[in-house]
């Protein structure tokens, strides 16, 4: 739904913008109708769309502004600068609300009074006399004109009225003015007093209040009288807007239903007729028959004055009836609703539709539905027909009934024109019922049949056969059969609500557009996240400090609590940002085929590159930093691995060499393999070379196994190539590849079999994840070392460090641990002799080592970044991280440092 909100805010801002501009234009150059119209339309759009969201105050304000502009448009109100200013104010207010909506900080409770206030000011221009709410009579009268007899009360409304009090409908009718009545059930929350609410007085000031009752349970002696137990029901005459505005603060505590006064009078008609029949007064009955209003008024008034109404119930009804008749201004409805025996079927059918279809959803809608079938002569015969040849189609859901009823109404309406309306009605009904129609009569009959539930069950089987011939009906029949009539409702309630909604929403999601963002922005975001990560790490220290120095345990606890929140948020933020940066490896891989083709051609070799797993996702920065080493490895394979075609044929291999480039996700890592089917590497040759170049010692030359020997090609200053190929220029050796890979947090291994081929296997983290590093100090500078590598920290007397041959050795728990002085390795001055040394014991593939440092510090989470600029050449650092205070932390590459040390 938030996408919808985004669209809404975006669109509405445009509307606001355009409306403001037009308003300013109008203020400077007068109200041109098309400008007013444009502003009206803008506000109308905002109002209409805002209705989709639960932001009532905004909707109401936009509505008020729209109404004012409508009046201006219709020349009922002349535009003034005051109006312009107020409208601009309203637009600004709406704009402010959009700002809040956008960041999610909206507070509807706060909006409400602003909305009411501005709305009232706007409406004041429309009708200066209307004291807020008490009457909208002018408007009411105007809207009366076209309202027709197609209205009635729903059953629920009738029940509510009857429940309110006996003859409540009649009594209300006596007093109605304006087109709309309401019935409100106001059940304040128990705790409402504590919010400063005063329900009874709220109810007493309801606009157009006609009657109310207050229900109050007996209170025990120990009852809490500050719990509100009052239940209020009230009826009166006022427009929906006015009531909703009045009750706006009490949303959720009340239910209200609205009905038109016409509907009320229509539903009272029979009751009035009944009562009239019981009043034995010829003057009155004659006057009514003659529709002589004056006479009715006066004779009813006379009767009212002279009658003795000491009798209880039934006379109450009579009295009210007379009261009504004595003041009635219109009696047409009495004769209009006279039930005709022919139309009864149609009437009852449509009535039940209006009730069933919309109870609880929308009362207004139900008012529209009822047909005026009884007035239409041709239909009566149809309905009659329907009774005889009843051939019902299927069980209808309430909404289907409502639709069908409307079509029937359309068919019978005064301005029905066959040529214009028949095709769509016939098509629609045909589609619903699975039939085709050629003329109005059969169509009307079919609708009436379909609407008539009663006979369905008996004849369901028959229809079955008929319908199965038509494609369109197939589905509907199925639905009919699977759901018995009682299950119908539950199906309607549940199916569309839950089961169906995910689907369209999903479809919507797929349409979401990609956003192209400058990578530097994301990198910047990443930097900030990194800093945030570090900054949040200071909170536990603050907490500790608060407890130790400030002596406030409570404060310390609060800080810790906040830390856990900030920590969680930072982590989510981090992973979100990391997700943004994920790209498929194809991003880098796609450059290679061409590279390989060019290289192969240059060397007169035939090589085929096979790539797999190109859609494996990878952090963009990581993959870019890997591009270089991968190229180097590929070159290596082409240059030294794959043999020339002649050589290959000689060895019985296919002429074309093959290089596989495979990316495979593995948990949080990705394995990248570069495999060639070339000549392979001879471990003995490597051993020898390594010895010659001083990479390994003589003793190692003998003890090292083949696999270890192969890994020697990654050692610094090693190159197997006997003659320097022009391709492996740039001075990048395998050691550089290894450095780059380990800087990216990965590892690299090589496997090779002479004559079969060589495989490089890179294991890389999928994201630039957060590393926990241990901080320590050497020569007043902070350094870090990956927490994974740290085994323990010990402090030993300097004398414990022994010198054996060329190495410093420390014995910890009977284990010999070579130690390395970091001051020396990092090129700092030697420290004055200390009595005690801090040793950081780290584990490496070569075993445990001790690093002599100056001082231990805490461990922190950092996002490690590769070395840049001048530092890039220093292999003994694996990367840098930014500290909370802006300092850069250098992270030690333990293996490199140890190599230097020895």
């Amino acid at each position: 739904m938030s996408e919808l909100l985004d669209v809404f805010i975006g669109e509405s801002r445009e509307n606001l913008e355009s409306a403001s501009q037009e308003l300013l234009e109008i203020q400077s150059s007068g109200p041109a109708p098309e400008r007013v119209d444009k502003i009206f339309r803008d506000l109308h759009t905002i109002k209409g769309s805002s209705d989709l969201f639960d932001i009532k105050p905004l909707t109401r304000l936009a509505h008020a502004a729209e109404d004012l502009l409508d009046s201006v448009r219709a020349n009922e109100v002349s535009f003034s600068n005051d109006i312009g200013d107020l409208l601009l104010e309203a637009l600004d207010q709406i704009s402010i609300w959009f700002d809040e909506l956008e960041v999610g900080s909206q507070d509807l409770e706060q909006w409400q009074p602003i909305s009411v206030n501005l709305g009232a000011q706007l409406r004041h221009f429309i009708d200066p006399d209307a004291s807020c709410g008490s009457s909208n009579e002018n408007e009411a009268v105007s809207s009366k004109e076209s309202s027709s007899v197609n209205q009635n009360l729903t059953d629920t409304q009738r029940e509510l009225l009857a429940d309110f009090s006996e003859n409540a409908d009649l009594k209300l009718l006596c007093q109605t003015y304006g087109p709309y009545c309401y019935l409100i059930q106001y059940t304040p929350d128990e705790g409402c007093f504590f919010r400063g609410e005063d329900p009874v007085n709220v109810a007493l000031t309801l606009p157009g209040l006609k009657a109310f009752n207050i229900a109050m349970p007996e209170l025990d002696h120990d009852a809490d009288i500050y719990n509100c137990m009052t239940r209020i029901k009230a009826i009166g005459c006022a427009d929906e807007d006015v009531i909703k505005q009045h009750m706006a603060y009490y949303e959720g505590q009340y239910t209200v239903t609205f009905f038109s006064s016409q509907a009320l009078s229509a539903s009272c008609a029979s009751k009035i007729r009944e009562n009239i029949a019981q009043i034995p007064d010829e003057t009155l009955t004659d006057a009514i028959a003659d529709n002589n209003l004056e006479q009715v008024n006066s004779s009813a008034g006379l009767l009212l004055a002279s009658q003795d109404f000491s009798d209880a119930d039934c006379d109450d009804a009579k009295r009210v009836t007379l009261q009504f008749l004595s003041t009635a201004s219109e009696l047409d409805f009495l004769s209009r609703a006279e039930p005709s025996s022919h139309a009864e079927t149609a009437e009852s059918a449509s009535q039940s539709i209006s009730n069933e279809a919309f109870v609880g959803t929308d009362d207004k809608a139900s008012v529209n539905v009822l047909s005026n079938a009884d007035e239409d002569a041709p239909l009566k015969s149809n309905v009659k027909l329907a009774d005889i040849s009843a051939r019902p189609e299927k069980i209808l859901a309430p909404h289907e009934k409502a639709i069908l009823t409307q079509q029937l109404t359309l068919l019978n309406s005064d301005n029905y024109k066959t040529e214009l309306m028949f095709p769509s009605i016939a098509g629609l009904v045909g589609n619903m019922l699975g039939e085709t129609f050629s003329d109005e009569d059969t169509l009307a009959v079919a609708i009436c049949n379909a609407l008539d539930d009663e006979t369905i069950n008996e004849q369901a089987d028959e229809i079955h056969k008929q319908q199965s011939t038509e494609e369109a009906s197939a589905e509907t029949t199925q639905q009919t059969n699977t759901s018995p009539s009682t299950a119908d409702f539950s199906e309607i309630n549940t199916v569309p609500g839950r089961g169906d909604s995910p689907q369209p929403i999903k479809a919507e999601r797929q349409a979401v557009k990609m956003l192209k963002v400058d990578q530097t922005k994301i990198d910047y975001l990443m930097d900030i996240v990194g800093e945030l990560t570090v900054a949040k790490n200071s909170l536990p220290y603050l907490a500790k400090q608060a407890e130790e120095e400030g002596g406030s345990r409570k404060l310390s606890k609060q800080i810790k609590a906040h830390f856990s929140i900030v920590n969680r948020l930072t982590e989510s933020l981090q992973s979100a940002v990391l997700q943004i940066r994920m790209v498929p490896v194809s991003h880098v891989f796609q450059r290679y085929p061409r590279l390989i083709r060019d290289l192969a051609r240059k060397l007169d070799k035939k090589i085929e590159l096979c790539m797999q797993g190109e859609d494996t996702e990878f952090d963009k920065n990581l993959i870019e930093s890997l591009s270089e080493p991968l190229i180097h490895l590929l070159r290596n394979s082409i240059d030294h691995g794959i043999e020339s075609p002649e050589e290959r044929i000689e060895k019985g291999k296919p002429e074309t060499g093959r290089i596989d480039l495979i990316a495979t996700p593995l948990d949080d890592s990705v394995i990248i393999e570069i495999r060639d089917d070339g000549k392979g590497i001879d471990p003995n040759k490597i051993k020898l070379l390594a010895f010659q170049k001083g990479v390994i010692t003589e003793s190692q030359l003998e003890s090292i196994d083949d696999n270890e020997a192969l890994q020697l090609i990654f050692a610094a200053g090693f190159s197997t190539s006997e003659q320097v190929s022009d391709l492996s220029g740039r001075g990048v050796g395998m050691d550089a590849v290894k450095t780059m890979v380990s800087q990216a947090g990965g590892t690299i291994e090589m496997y090779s079999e002479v004559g079969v081929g060589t495989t490089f296997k890179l294991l890389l983290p999928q994201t630039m994840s957060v590393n926990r590093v241990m901080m320590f100090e050497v020569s007043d500078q902070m350094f870090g070392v990956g927490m994974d590598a740290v085994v323990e920290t010990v402090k030993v007397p300097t004398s414990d460090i022994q010198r054996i041959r060329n190495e410093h050795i420390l014995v910890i728990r009977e284990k010999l641990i070579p130690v390395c002085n970091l001051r020396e390795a990092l090129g700092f001055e030697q420290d004055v002799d200390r009595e005690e040394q801090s040793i950081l014991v780290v584990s490496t593939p070569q075993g445990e080592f001790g690093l002599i440092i100056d001082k231990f510090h805490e461990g922190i989470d950092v996002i490690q970044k590769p070395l840049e600029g001048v530092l890039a050449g220093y292999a003994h650092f694996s990367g840098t991280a930014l500290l909370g205070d802006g300092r850069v932390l250098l992270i030690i590459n333990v293996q490199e440092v140890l190599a230097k040390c020895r």
Partner: protein
Amino acid sequence: MPIAFKKKVAVMTGHCEIEEAESLFTWLNEEASRQVNLKALTSAHTAVYQVLLAKKPKVSVWPESENLFWLIKIMNNKSNVWCE
């Protein structure tokens, strides 16, 4: 003082705020025969009405204020009040 508690009668005057509800309730609970004088009462908070309607004490003098016509009716067990 919107409510003056005398020996047998509580005299309610002007507008009675929500704070009065509790003392009125306690006072009425103490003895069933206690009465209220509403002569000068003009309006009250729902909580105060709630006490009056729930306890329905005997009323020594009914309110003069026209605004409270409904209170008279409801306290006389008429469930519905029509504004006429």
